[in-house]
């Protein structure tokens, strides 16, 4: 059973992160809201419950490694890093601006980013190498890779899945943000992937399917993944793209388009974000 007080605490953090995402987009006036908002809850559970890390020392040997294969959700990534203390929250104002460490897609100039990503279908292969290397050295660190479901269309993704299953990388956990949408529309219409869970199973992965907006389920899944031995784990988190902003929910058009300033205010209002978020 998960600790109810922790669930409540994480929900509060997730709420702040959603406000941060909209706030960063308001300042940048470009970027990716949909997949940021869908992955928020499970990523909050990862960063503020499951993950071993030290934001004051991002090169700490004992840290777990996080690789955002879906690098386009930089509004979420940088909000998580700000909430963790890797960067100042105020730096989110510079997101996507010239000269900022917070680039359109994350790179290693930003503390807390292990590797630059943004070209889909590459992150999991990187995670496989990191997991293999850590295991070779007898290290207990875990490796997490955050992916989109559309990203499962990349052939390279399946090469990575195959190798992780083959090498029985039980120090590796994929968080699959199963929001059902990509840019051109519904994943099933563009290039169907179902039955997705069975595909991962067929490649020798342990599959956990959860409601990706249920904080207790997110925490339990991350706990369970740590216990699985002899195979890697994928948490298939069923989510809603644009979660939390009613008019963005399940709308492909909000994949890679920032809301205009007044739309941002509307979104912040709907999310009931505090007054300090309305400063743009």
């Amino acid at each position: 059973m998960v600790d109810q007080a922790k669930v409540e605490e994480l929900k509060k953090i997730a709420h702040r992160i959603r406000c941060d995402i909209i706030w960063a987009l308001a300042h940048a006036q470009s970027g990716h809201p949909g997949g940021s908002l869908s992955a928020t809850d499970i990523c909050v559970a990862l960063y503020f419950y499951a993950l071993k890390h030290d934001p004051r020392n991002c090169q700490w040997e004992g840290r777990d490694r996080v690789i955002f294969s879906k690098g386009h959700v930089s509004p979420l990534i940088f909000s998580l890093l700000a909430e963790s203390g890797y960067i100042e929250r105020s730096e989110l104002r510079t997101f996507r601006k010239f000269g900022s460490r917070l680039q359109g897609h994350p790179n290693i100039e930003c503390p807390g980013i292990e590797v630059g990503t943004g070209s889909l279908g590459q992150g999991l292969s990187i995670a496989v190498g990191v997991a293999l290397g850590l295991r070779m050295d007898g290290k207990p660190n875990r490796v997490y890779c955050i992916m989109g479901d559309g990203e499962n269309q990349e052939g390279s993704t399946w090469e990575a899945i195959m190798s992780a299953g083959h090498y029985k990388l039980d120090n590796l956990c994929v968080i699959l943000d199963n929001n059902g949408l990509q840019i051109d529309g519904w994943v099933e219409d563009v290039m169907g992937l179902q039955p997705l869970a069975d595909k991962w199973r067929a490649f020798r992965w342990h599959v956990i399917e959860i409601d990706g907006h249920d904080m207790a389920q997110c925490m339990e899944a991350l706990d369970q993944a740590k216990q699985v031995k002899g195979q890697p784990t994928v948490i298939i988190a069923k989510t809603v793209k644009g979660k939390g902003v009613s008019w963005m929910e399940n709308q492909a058009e909000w994949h890679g388009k920032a809301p205009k300033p007044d739309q941002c205010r509307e979104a912040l209002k709907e999310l009931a974000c505090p007054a300090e978020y309305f400063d743009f």
Partner: protein
Amino acid sequence: MSEIKWKATRDGYGDALVEMGAQDERIVVLGADLTDSTRALWFAQKYPDRFFDFGIAEQNMLNAAAGLAMVGKIPWVSTYGVFVAGRAWDQIRTTTCYSNLNVKIGGAHGGISVGQDGATHQALEDVATMRVLPNMTVIVPADYYETKKAVIWACKHVGPVYVRFGREPVPIVTKPEDPFIMGKANLINDGTDVTIMNNGPVLWECMKAVQTLKEKGISARLLNMHTVKPIDREAIAKAARETGAIVTVEEHQVMGGFGSAVAEVVVQTYPVPMRFIGIQDRFGESGTPEELFEEFGLTAKHIVAAVEDVLKAKRG
């Protein structure tokens, strides 16, 4: 100069595909989850049964295009330059180019003018990786009309073609009636002291530079060279001989790109001093196109400075 209209070159791609789609039923378009932003959507809406979305799977898309070409279709694959000229390079090399298949590639989001998305999405190496491939034709149009003409030409040509275009609106500086001859440079301004050779939408900056140079008493020839491969050897050798100094301009890495292609000809025909305007061996970054053009040294001011510098090195 003030009543110049602006339009993105990708719009020229979209419009040309729709136009050619009506004329030739063999034309099919393939997308990889970027259908709207590459403007392939316009063709897809008009000819839904001749459009195939391959999802986020570029390597598969490229070889599927090769297969379609093998049975007589004229496939246009549409995605960002990085994800095609980078990600699917081996497929293009060993399947399309080695067997000289009739595959057409629309490489979108060329250059740093992509802006806020940053380094991962700004194709700065695609001209280099495409031009080293035997059988490949590489075209980087300068504006909307030139893009349309390039795509229309490519539809009629048999063999692999890479056409690069950009995301942001750029000034329309050519006219619909201007000639487009694959492999031939267009003379924009004649001059005697130096030649500026342009590749792609930076043309506008070159035109402004020519004006400034004129005010400074420097007579600059301006050649717009849309075709990187096969390059116009004749125009290059002539410019070298007649003006004695060359500055190349491109929105691409200077290593391996258009400037390198020009230099290869210059050193073999009539060696003269050269300067290279383009990306100087670094990755792109986030910012507005204007900020990035300034940072990466792609403005008229930078072209003028390069001309003044190359003139110092000019003999006699």
